[in-house]
């Protein structure tokens, strides 16, 4: 580094030179496509027709959104989905009550209230007399995605938390066990689906082979509407346990040993200590892991696409697969983009939550 004269580049010039490669790719391959996606969603845009003739698209305003999410004679009533709306009302009451009694912070109360209001409003829409949804598959697909998230997220979180609590010791044996539980995480989605397709096969599958020996009759996991979703959830839990477990282990390490010693003096050991000491101190990590998993699993595609092809009877059809099919099988890029914008809005909302929770930590 033989330097004799002062550099001719000012700090600003150097900064822009260093930033240029990233900003160029960022602008070209993320910012531009993002706005282009909004633009496409406002058009009647057939993939093949536009590829052949760039003028073959037609501006239709918000019609794609209407055709995807709305219908004829859609009405709203409080009793359309009594279970979910009832749950929403209960949540609203709980938020008000707990906040009023001083048992819940304002932030949590507002979050619970917002979620409850959404639960009351959204399931309330339904087609009235002579009415129907324009796209009969969209909302059931969103529902399936939510069911998948609703099963996979608690499944992963609870298993990972239990394992992390048990494995939280710096010994060689525990390290080896952690490695075993983490290993499946590095496999690709196609390897995971390959393994589990055959695991679940009623004729060749390991599960069927074991039940056969035990004298049971094999289950058609992937083709039975009752079991297909469970099957892809099981494969997903097996696959994605690792990250959650590692994040929990990191969270556990932040809890000071003194608290446990103090708790031990009060006779809180083992499960009791876990319940009264570990869990309350791990609240933030749990929230972070849950939000992270929601973002991750809401984008599920490969498991459904490769293991069940969305079937049987659309019971495992999920949002990203529906976007993919609408765009690339049906060539309806406009409608597919409208759904992608819908997906982005949901993901964006959860990213904001994740950001806020992550900030609180540091």
């Amino acid at each position, binding site marked *: 580094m033989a330097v004799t004269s002062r550099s001719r580049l000012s700090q600003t010039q150097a900064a822009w030179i260093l930033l240029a490669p990233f900003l160029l790719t960022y602008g070209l391959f*993320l910012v531009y496509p993002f706005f282009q996606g909004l633009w496409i969603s406002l058009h009647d845009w057939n993939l093949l027709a536009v590829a052949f003739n760039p003028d073959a698209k037609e501006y239709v305003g918000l019609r794609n959104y209407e055709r995807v999410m709305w219908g004829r004679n859609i009405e709203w009533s409080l009793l359309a989905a009594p279970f979910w709306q009832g749950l929403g009302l209960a949540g609203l009451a709980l938020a008000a009550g707990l906040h009023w009694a001083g048992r819940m912070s304002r932030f949590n109360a507002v979050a619970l209230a917002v979620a409850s209001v959404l639960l009351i409003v959204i399931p309330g829409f339904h087609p009235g007399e002579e009415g129907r949804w324009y796209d009969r598959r969209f909302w059931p697909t969103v529902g399936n995605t939510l069911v998948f998230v609703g099963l996979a997220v608690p499944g992963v979180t609870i298993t990972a938390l239990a394992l992390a609590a048990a494995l939280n010791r710096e010994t060689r044996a525990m390290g080896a066990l952690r490695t075993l539980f983490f290993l*499946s995480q590095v496999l*690709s989605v196609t390897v995971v689906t390959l393994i589990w397709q055959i695991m679940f096969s009623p004729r060749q599958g390991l599960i069927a082979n074991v039940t056969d020996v035990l004298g049971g009759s094999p289950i058609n996991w992937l083709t039975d509407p009752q079991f297909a979703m469970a099957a892809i959830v099981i494969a997903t839990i097996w696959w994605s346990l690792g*990250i959650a477990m590692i994040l929990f282990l990191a969270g556990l390490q932040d809890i000071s040993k003194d608290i446990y010693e103090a708790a031990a003096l009060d006779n809180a050991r083992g499960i009791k200590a876990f319940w009264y000491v570990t869990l309350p101190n791990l609240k933030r990590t749990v929230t972070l892991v849950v939000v992270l998993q929601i973002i991750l699993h809401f984008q599920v595609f490969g498991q459904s696409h490769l293991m069940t092809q969305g079937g049987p009877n659309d019971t495992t059809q999920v949002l990203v697969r529906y976007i*993919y099919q609408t765009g*690339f099988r049906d060539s309806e890029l406009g409608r597919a983009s409208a759904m992608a914008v819908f997906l982005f809005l949901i993901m964006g909302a959860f990213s904001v939550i994740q950001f806020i929770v992550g900030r609180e930590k540091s």
Partner: protein
Amino acid sequence: MNRAYYWLVFALSIPAFLWLVPTLWMVSLSFQPNEVLARTTSTTLFGLIPIPFTAENYAALFSFGQTPWWFLNSVIVSLGMTLGVLAVSTTAGYALARLDFPGKTAITIVCLIGLMVPEQAVFIPLYTMFADLGWHNSYHALILPRMAVPIGVFLMMQFFRAIPKDIEEAARLDGVGWLKIFWHVMLPLARPAMMTLAILTFLYAWNDYLWPLVSAQQREYFTITLGLASIQSNFAQSEGLGRVMASGVIASLPVVILFLIFQRYVVQAMTVGGSKG
């Protein structure tokens, strides 16, 4: 170490073994003859031990079929993407962390917003854009889109921020230019963070499925992940179960080896990648 500890280890090794069984089964099936597997997969101990044994599936895989070619594609795409991401992330991360210039805050915020955009929200416009350019079915089509993801920039930015200022200031007093400080002083210090980012990117690239699925339609440009998806739908009839499983093992080998060697970095990379984007 007391008795309770050994009981805990023993109790935990049962679920740990069950967790390993699906992977073990794939490896074991890949070493069994296809004729036997067509009849039953439950040979020795539910097929978990490869007896009767054969290595023919692997030999067949390398003598014909496209698996070696797909494997090579994956190596090229993953290494290309890793180098690309490292290049744009270290430079931009350093500029945003250590240099002062007008518009810095605005750019940081614009990049932060980019973390919220999932791949699935932009893959359709990316597809039409690359189609207009005639870029599909090429390596750069598989590599370029991921370079735009700002997660690496934030990772490097956080790392550079933590380096004490006086190292840089000493070099400045000697009259060294900013770009030289970046190249000769900061980059060597950033090796651990670059390692984490490299592994994060490599794993992502190797396992990515959705973008290769829409971009690479010609089988010559399939990555191994995509190729494996294309042969698993009709695995039993056309290729033989043992051979498909051998492809699965080959497809997993690099990431598993990477994981076993660099476990610490992989765990760190996935934690960072997981909690930030």
